[in-house]
């Protein structure tokens, strides 16, 4: 029924199967939309946020998807600016994943703002002393860059590409994509960094506070670094999931290997910086504010924030995947590679979790207990909503757009065109 829209040289499942898949994810999406409407019409009392938890599940999800969406800017930087030409076979998918991540982040922010009709105030009445203003500027501009990078893919749909104007527009956009990619890298550097900077400048929160360089706390640089390291891992992770779901090989091994190797070096150097930062914070910064390291990791309900979380973040989800990705014999084993990128992705999510939630949970005053928080179902539903949206957009793009240029070569169709 929709065969005229499917790219040449590839095979897709029947429209019936596809419709069922979209319907299942659409139902989850509608559940999220229902929660979203409740929050819009009834207000933030639908959440379990309190005065102690001004940042909650949404902000963690925001920071996590922005970090993981960093694969788009970093792969674009490698492909268009540094000239790693092999990555042209995966850049489309990196852009699509980035587009999903950033549109999800903006959607979550639109819910979290609380007064969506005033969301434009952050641009019009900008507070130029706030790192969040920089985040808002760069985030929306970079989403514009991702949209510009995604448009040529849409225009390369078989039917759209027959329209001469669309055909020429897609070609011209590809022609100057390096300009957009460079702008995207510039914007990403600052908004990834400023998200880290938000925690690092909170001098009233010793768990998150860091010293730094000029106006930038060390977390500014660590967030950008971790996004550049874990973003490509997320791109590989989603590519492998897509290959498992479709039962096809979509990207050649040498492309994945190159991206994994670069991600491994980025992750290894990030871990060195992270370990130094953690040591300096534990040995100098926190004691100067009257805290020891174990004050942040003990006496909390159920040991939810025990020292295990630091070990998991740095050793299990940081050092271990870095070693696995750096050793050619290990990263060329598909199972090991998948384990490594999964751990790296979990590491980025865990880092954002502790920097957003543990930072607020840890007591600051001697008479305070640990603050506990459990999200309401509306918060959970609106956080799952972007996942369902992402699955639907990726499914539609995979079905109708030439996302994987190597797919026809890797999966030849007998007698088909």
């Amino acid at each position, binding site marked *: 029924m929709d065969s005229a829209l499917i790219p040449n040289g590839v095979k897709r499942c029947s429209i019936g199967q596809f419709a069922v898949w979209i319907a299942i994810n659409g139902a989850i999406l509608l559940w999220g939309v229902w929660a979203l409407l409740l929050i819009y019409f009834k207000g933030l009392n639908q959440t379990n946020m309190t005065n102690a938890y001004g940042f909650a599940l949404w902000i963690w999800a925001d920071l996590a998807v922005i970090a993981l969406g960093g694969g788009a800017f970093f792969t674009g930087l490698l492909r268009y600016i540094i000239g790693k030409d092999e990555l042209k076979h995966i850049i489309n998918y990196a852009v699509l994943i980035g587009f999903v991540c950033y549109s999800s982040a903006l959607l979550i922010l639109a819910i979290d703002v609380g007064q969506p009709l005033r969301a434009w105030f952050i641009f019009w*009445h900008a507070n130029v002393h706030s790192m969040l203003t920089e985040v808002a500027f760069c985030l929306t501009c970079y989403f514009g860059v991702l949209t510009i990078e995604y448009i040529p893919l849409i225009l390369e749909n078989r039917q759209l590409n027959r329209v001469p104007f669309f055909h020429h527009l897609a070609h011209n*956009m590809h022609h100057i994509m390096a*300009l957009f990619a460079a702008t995207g890298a510039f914007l990403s550097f600052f908004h990834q960094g400023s998200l880290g900077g938000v925690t690092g400048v909170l001098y009233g929160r010793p768990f998150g506070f860091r010293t730094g360089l000029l106006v930038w706390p060390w977390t500014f640089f660590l967030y950008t670094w971790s996004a550049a390291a874990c973003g490509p891992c997320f791109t590989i992770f989603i590519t492998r999931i897509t290959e498992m779901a479709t039962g096809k090989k979509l990207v050649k091994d040498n492309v994945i290997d190159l991206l994994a190797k670069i991600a491994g070096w980025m992750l290894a150097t990030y871990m060195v910086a992270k370990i130094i930062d953690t040591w300096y914070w534990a040995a100098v910064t926190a004691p100067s504010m009257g805290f020891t390291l174990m004050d942040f990791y003990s006496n909390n309900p159920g040991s939810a924030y025990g020292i295990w979380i630091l070990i998991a973040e740095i050793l299990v989800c940081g050092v271990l995947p870095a070693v696995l990705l750096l050793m050619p014999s290990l990263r060329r084993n598909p199972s090991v590679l998948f384990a490594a990128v999964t751990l790296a992705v979990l590491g980025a999510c865990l880092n954002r979790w502790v920097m957003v939630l543990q930072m607020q949970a840890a007591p600051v005053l001697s008479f305070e207990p640990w603050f506990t928080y459990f999200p309401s179902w509306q918060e959970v539903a609106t956080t799952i909503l972007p996942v369902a949206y992402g699955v639907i957009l990726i499914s539609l793009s995979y079905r109708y757009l030439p996302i994987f240029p190597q797919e026809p070569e890797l999966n030849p169709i007998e007698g088909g065109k």
Partner: protein
Amino acid sequence: MFPFSFEWVWDMGHIVFHGGLWYALSILGMGMTYCIIKAVYDTVKSKDGGHGSGHH
């Protein structure tokens, strides 16, 4: 956002923040304008019997 907004001050914070914003928006705007105008030109040229931008 604009110098005519009532809270605008000509200080370093406003110049750096908004300068960066307008710098990025200008690049994106000019880039897209170039692509669209050139696509119109190429389309008209190819309809006139030419070979467009000569690609593919």
